[in-house]
């Protein structure tokens, strides 16, 4: 029985060629982080840069990206400057030609002279894509629900929302412009509010697809 089951499952687990499409990305942008605990508004903003890689296999795409930069605080306030680093991983599955569903995790770190504040924000996103017919570009808009965020900060986030909108060219070489806005809601008596706005411009390069082997 066991040997028969193994034989039956063999075609499923055997190594077979799948056309894999790799896309490399380089981007730079401006990030504006603001928070308030009911009093003054703290702000950190600065230029960020980074890159990423996306691997498309059939209908599924997995992307991994990282950005970092120096966020400055206004000198007239008590906010500290911070070194910002963010790493994001996301799995995307198209539901229909104009709609894609993605799930991923974003981990970010704000390092100041006082200490390091780490955030992990899992999220689920629905993206609407509107490809232009006359030019090789696609406009898109995505809404995300941040589910179960965690942080080492004193406040306890209970969730959040994010949007992403932009326009991007099509492979093999594509420029893109993107706007992101993310806001978090917190529990507790103090009405803490936090949001991150970001504009990114970058380039995506998709080399000629090559057959790879996947299990």
């Amino acid at each position: 029985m066991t040997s028969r089951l193994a034989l039956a499952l063999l075609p499923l687990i055997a190594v077979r060629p799948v056309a894999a499409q790799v896309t490399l990305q380089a981007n730079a942008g401006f990030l504006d982080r603001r928070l308030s605990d009911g009093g003054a508004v703290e702000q950190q903003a600065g230029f960020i840069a980074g890159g990423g890689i996306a691997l498309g296999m059939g209908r599924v795409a997995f992307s991994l990206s990282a950005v970092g930069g120096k966020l400055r605080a206004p000198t007239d306030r008590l906010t500290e400057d911070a070194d910002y680093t963010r790493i994001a991983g996301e799995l995307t599955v198209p539901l229909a030609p104009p709609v894609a569903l993605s799930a991923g995790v974003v981990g970010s770190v704000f390092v100041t002279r006082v200490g390091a504040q780490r955030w992990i924000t899992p999220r689920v996103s629905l993206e609407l894509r509107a490809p232009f017919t006359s030019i090789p570009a696609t406009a898109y808009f995505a809404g995300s629900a941040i589910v179960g965020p965690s942080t080492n900060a004193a406040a306890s986030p209970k969730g959040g929302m994010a949007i992403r909108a932009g326009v991007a060219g099509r492979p093999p070489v594509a420029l893109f412009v993107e706007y992101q806005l993310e806001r978090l809601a917190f529990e507790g008596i103090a009405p803490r509010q936090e949001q991150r706005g970001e504009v990114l411009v970058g380039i995506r390069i998709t080399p000629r697809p090559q057959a790879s082997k996947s299990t």
Partner: protein
Amino acid sequence: MTRPVALAWILLLSPATTHAQAAEQLLTQGRQAFDNLDFEQAARLFTRVLDVASGATSSERDTAQLYLGVSYEYAGQRSNAVSAFRALIRTNPCLPTPEQYGAGVTAAYVEAQGGVFAVGPCELRRQEATRETGAVFRIAATRPAFVRALLADSTGRPLADLGEVEASGIAQLRWTDLPDPSALPPQRARYQLVLRARAAQGGETDERVLPIMLSVPSVDTTPLPPPPGVRDFRPEQRSIAPAVGDLAKGLGVGIVAVAASSVLAYQTLGSETTKAIGVGGVISVAGFVAFITGSGHRTIEENREYNAALRRAWESQRDSIVATNQSRRANRPIVIEPGEVRR
């Protein structure tokens, strides 16, 4: 009432058919008298056949004229015989010398030939002539002559010069430059073949008018191909709808980005409008560029070339069939038939 008187009354009172019957009857009586060696009576009867009032056909006239000459010769009236033969030769120069009636008749006929300058056709039969083969007429001249043939309409108005031939005895006149059959009526139409002769020596001339009938039978032609239908053509211009759709996409996504930003951003933390409008504006501009591009390049060159090739193929096929039909019509044979001879 005696029989000749009764016959005269019949000739005077009866219509043309009765005249024809009278001519035939006179000819039969004349031949009976000739066979009974009553040559003077035969000559009188043949003379009456030649009377215009007898209504004799051209063939009966030629027969009567020949027998009249022979009868005169057998009756010992050489001068009358020569006169009768001259009349016969003048109307029908193609007849051979009647040697079967003996040396006397032959001598009289030869004498008659020497005194007559005449030209005429020989055995004009039905023929089908094309512009490639031409038409052939056999003509005869009693003496060497230059004979010019003309085609004239029924009123005698010359239509075409068929050429000139030098004839001595019997000669062939070939009409090569036939008219375009398309210019001729499909039904049989009356024309005239005019032969104008001038003797090679001396100033004698003669002219003979021969009625002929020309007709052009119809010819099978290939029907023209129908032009391509509307469904056969491909659209040469793209719809403007995709371009409008692109504009709507760009404007829509841009507006949604700005609106979602203003809804989502905490008002207490400050505005996100600048960044949202900036990127939303870029998205909208992309949609506008797509609209301009799409509405400005709507011509589908591939389909335009396909449609042009479709038209050219149909025109080529049509022109080929038109040329073939024209060739068939132009090469239709012209049917030439002898017309009714009236003297």
